């Protein structure tokens, strides 16, 4: 199979972003060189005040860069007209349109504005684009509902449908999962992945949720106040220690073995665990919560061994049996009282 290079949707060259305050230029991030490719979902991650929103606003065209430039579809942004821009990048922001009596289909239809004439009259093509946008986001049945009456997740979908109707190669979403419940988050992220894969959209989201970003994005853009922007694919970033490095000094530590962020405190004990999956995973999970580190080596004073079916779980200290639990639930219920007296 030939290697397919995904076409570049957006590329920055030495882009310095910031804002003006009292006539002074305040630089937030310097000399950013990043590329957003079609068919890719990129997550822009960083704490508040790290320049996440400034970068999004700059790339979406709401504010000019301090210096440097970026290209959309291989063309410098300065050559873009208002209308061309509207046909290239669409946005989904945390602020929701809350106008009275605004229906889902009104909102989605607004996505066609860059294509309709002065009167705003919809052509056949416009109407097809609108219904396609609603069906790919699963909101066709809600087309006549008022936006005010929808749940946060449904409203988020309606806004994404607006972006799809806008028919732009690039979609930028500011915290698309922030107000959603857990299943809602997963559904939205899944939808965005699908859009990237099947419609070749270049999608950039900002998020606080690093777990969600690691799980779903093709690429991460990490920003922080004192470090330059770090870009890469999640797994290599984790394996080569970049993620760990990036988050050190922020009181959390990235555990490369579990893909989790833990509070940066020394473990009380080290134990090794011998069990089958999924029990191994959940035993580790429970032990980690009690600040007990599970190591892969067996050179630890403590060993926990579970029988294959998980019926008997035993704790050994230097090969001496200390405690036996009769089954999983017995272990999970009572292990903490024992381990704290080890």
């Amino acid at each position, binding site marked *: 199979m030939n290697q397919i290079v995904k076409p570049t949707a957006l590329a920055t060259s030495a882009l310095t972003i910031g804002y003006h305050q009292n006539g002074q230029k305040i630089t937030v991030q310097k000399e950013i060189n990043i590329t957003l490719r079609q068919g890719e979902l990129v997550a822009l991650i960083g704490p508040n005040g790290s320049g996440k929103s400034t970068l999004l606003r700059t790339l979406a065209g709401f504010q000019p860069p301090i210096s440097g430039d970026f290209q959309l579809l291989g063309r410098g942004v300065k050559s873009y007209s208002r209308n061309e821009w509207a046909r290239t990048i669409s946005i989904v922001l945390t*602020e929701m349109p809350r106008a009275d009596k605004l229906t889902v289909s009104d909102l989605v239809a607004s996505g066609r504005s860059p294509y309709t004439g002065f009167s705003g009259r919809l052509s056949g093509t416009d109407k097809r684009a609108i219904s396609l946008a609603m069906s790919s986001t699963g909101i066709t049945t809600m087309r006549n509902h008022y936006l005010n009456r929808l749940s946060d997740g449904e409203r988020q979908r309606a806004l994404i449908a607006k972006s799809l109707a806008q028919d732009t190669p690039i979609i930028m979403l500011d915290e698309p999962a922030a107000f959603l419940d857990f299943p809602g988050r997963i559904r939205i992220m899944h939808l965005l992945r699908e859009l990237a894969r099947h419609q070749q959209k270049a999608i950039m989201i900002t998020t606080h949720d690093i777990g969600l970003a690691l799980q779903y994005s093709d690429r991460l853009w990490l920003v922080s106040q004192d470090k330059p922007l770090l870009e890469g694919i999640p797994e290599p970033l984790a394996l080569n220690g970049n993620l760990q490095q990036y988050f050190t000094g922020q009181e959390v530590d990235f555990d490369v073995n579990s893909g989790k962020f833990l509070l940066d405190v020394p473990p009380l004990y080290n134990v090794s665990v011998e069990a089958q999956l999924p029990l191994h995973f959940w035993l580790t999970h429970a032990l980690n919560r009690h600040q007990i580190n599970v190591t892969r080596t067996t050179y630890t004073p403590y060993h926990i061994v579970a029988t294959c079916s998980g019926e008997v779980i035993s704790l050994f200290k230097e090969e001496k049996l200390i405690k036996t639990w009769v089954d999983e639930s017995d272990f999970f219920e009572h292990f903490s009282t024992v381990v704290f007296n080890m």
Partner: protein
Amino acid sequence: MTVNQPTLKRPTVRITLLISGFILTLLLVLANLLTGSVDISPDQLLNNLTGFGPTDSTITTILFKFRLPQAITALVAGAGLSVAGLMMQSLFRNPLADPSILGISSGASLGVAILILSAGTGSGTAFLTSGILGDLTVTFAALAGAILVMMIIIVFARTIQSHSNLLILGIMVGYITFSAVGILKYYSPREALQRFVIWGLGSFGEVSQSRLGLFVLLTILGLFASILLAKTLNLMLLGEHYAQNLGLNIRKARLFIILISGFLTAVITAYCGPVAFLGLAVPHLTRNLFQTSSHQLLLPASALLGGILALLCNLAARLPVFNGTLPISAVTALVGAPVVIWLIFKGNK
């Protein structure tokens, strides 16, 4: 199934509403012609209007010189104020916005106050309080004041990015003009003051037959211009960022909206005095009745509903029980406020 119903029902409901609106307008115009201090029977009305059958010169005079101009003024002013209010509500995405929110009608008040109250101290009172010339100067003063404030707002609009800051500035300009009016009032003689207070209560009956043509022309010009902004207003409703991302030039759009809404407000306030409430309430009524946020429908429907409500208020103000004509601003709120209150309770259920 309730989900899919509106697609079938809505267009027919809306057309029915529009048609009944037109019929109601016609009926209200006729009712306005029949009502007043002189009794006119439907027969007499028909004869004198069409010219067939026996006509009576007194009745013809009453009809064509007073009642018909007044009905047409009410219709046109109601339509214009409602559209101006709708535009302000959509621009600022604020249900409390109305045509006077940017201080434009306060500007008109200031213009009139300067004319009536400062003239009142000199010998000009007599010349002002009577005759067509007096009315014309009042209209001109109001228009000048309103346009002056509108220009100030437009200068602000060109430099200030944020809609809400512009709104606050507009309200502040309104307060400044208001207090200027207050100071003028404090130093003016009783008769002039009374005349100013009466102007301030608004009336659809001050536009004489000879001046009606220009008033109607200007207002209809403003109404047509507003229709051209339907797409712009739909985008504005989504918020500045979404509108900009959809290709709208926000500053230009805002300028046009203020210009047209302000023009309508200035003209109507100049001719009729400040008419409260219609511009605030009618857009709400229209949105609820037509169940839409689309300005392609809201603009003409607000104009229609505004005309109807103004005619209704004009009728109510001149009911024989009142022994004359009540001030129109008092009646508009009295008739309209309960409707809005009812709508809010209905919406909360």
